[in-house]
């Protein structure tokens, strides 16, 4: 599983927002993964120094292209690794990959006895949650999903078309976006930018009575704040799965 490093090649890369890039890697010998898992990427400098970072798998595994994995990297200004992956790493170049990693923060059809799913994303924390939405679509599954996505401003939003816009094609997946620092022009509701509130979470999430499976992912501060709110709203702590990406920025 997560033991060995494999040498992967970047086969495709596209801008995912003004500050993020989706990388498609070909990983020889890759044997599949589940939605919510991540990989470790290892970068090597020419003096042999290495740095390792975790990145969530954004795509569900496709048996027709079994060695392809996709990650979406958000540039953390001044970061050691992410600016390189977003700005410099070029198609055709190689990188070491280990994984898939993680077995708790995963969803597959039928999980929790088919319980409804509540996905709560902060910033790039949306990546593994979108993998779950894609897995549901790939499997033609009908589990009711709700996603609340907290993101700074329009230029930073990931997968917006797919989740809420013209490319949306998932019946039974309701997505609600919370803009924390700047709203898109011409938005119908007049909500000023600001953090997700308890009230909004109650309104756009599932009630605790429905006993949903809850996945929370994002910067540490976001995960902490949202987890506290979920408990206040009566969700069972054991139904909440969280993944922390690192320090808070929002």
């Amino acid at each position: 599983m997560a033991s060995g490093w494999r040498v992967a090649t970047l086969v495709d890369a596209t801008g995912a927002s003004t500050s993020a890039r989706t990388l498609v890697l070909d990983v020889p010998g890759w044997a599949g993964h589940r939605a919510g898992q991540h990989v470790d990427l290892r970068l090597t400098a020419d003096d042999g120094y290495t740095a390792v970072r975790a990145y969530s798998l954004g795509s569900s595994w496709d048996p027709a292209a079994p060695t392809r994995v996709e990650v979406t990297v958000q540039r953390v200004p001044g970061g050691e690794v992410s600016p390189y992956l977003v700005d410099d790493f070029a198609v055709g170049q190689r990188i070491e990959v280990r994984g898939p990693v993680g077995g708790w923060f995963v969803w597959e059809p039928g999980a929790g006895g088919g319980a409804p799913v509540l996905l709560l994303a902060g910033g790039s924390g949306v990546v593994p949650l979108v993998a779950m939405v894609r897995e549901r679509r790939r499997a033609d599954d009908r589990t009711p999903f709700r996603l609340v996505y907290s993101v700074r401003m329009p230029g930073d939003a990931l997968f917006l078309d797919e989740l809420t816009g013209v490319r949306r094609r998932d019946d039974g997946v309701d997505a609600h976006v919370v803009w924390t620092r700047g709203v898109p022009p011409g938005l119908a509701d007049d909500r000023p930018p600001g953090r997700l509130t308890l009230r909004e979470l109650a309104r756009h999430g599932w009630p605790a009575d429905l006993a949903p499976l809850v996945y929370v992912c994002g910067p540490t501060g976001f995960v902490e704040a949202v987890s506290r709110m979920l408990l206040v709203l009566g969700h069972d702590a054991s139904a909440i799965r969280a993944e922390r990406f690192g320090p808070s920025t929002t």
Partner: protein
Amino acid sequence: MSTDGPADQLTPGFRGRPRPDGVALPPGQYLERGFPVLTAGPTPHVPTDRWALTVCNEDRETWTWSWADLMALPQDEPTVDLHCVTRWSKFGTRWRGVSLDVLLADVRSSAQYALVTCYGGYTTNLPVADLLGGRAWVAHTYDDRPLHPEHGGPARLLVPHLYLWKSAKWVKEIHLVRDETRGFWERYGYHDYGDPWREQRYQGD
């Protein structure tokens, strides 16, 4: 050194953090133990009772803090390395100030760029993203003492992950703007971003 040829090289061009065993300087920098002063003009002296900081968004809405307001906000004590484009770097400098995350928390804006203006007329530009994420401060104390005017007191911007000219002394206003507007040195051909680790000294680097 790696024995692999370029064709086999992993992540070509990746440099990584400074190594603990001493290779800690960005390219082209030397280690300085003093604290040189480089300023484009005379040093302004701004008494704290006449000091204010204003943030102005792209719709010309403003948010202003007096000195007392600034002191009442949560304070950080960052210890950071400084890199000046004039090639000195100084390690482990100790500051006290207010994080831009705190100052910008309630500011309504979707602008991507900031133009910082100062008492004395100095300006500099940088992306808003670089002001956020616990990486930028309005600093008023250096080494446990009020910041000396020649180093930017009463308060200066501190953005240590960029070359020091971005850490504008005597900060007065931060304008959040849709289109990047070049500041003082930038108009003279210095880099719009100024990452010391990528040696972005001049436009085009």
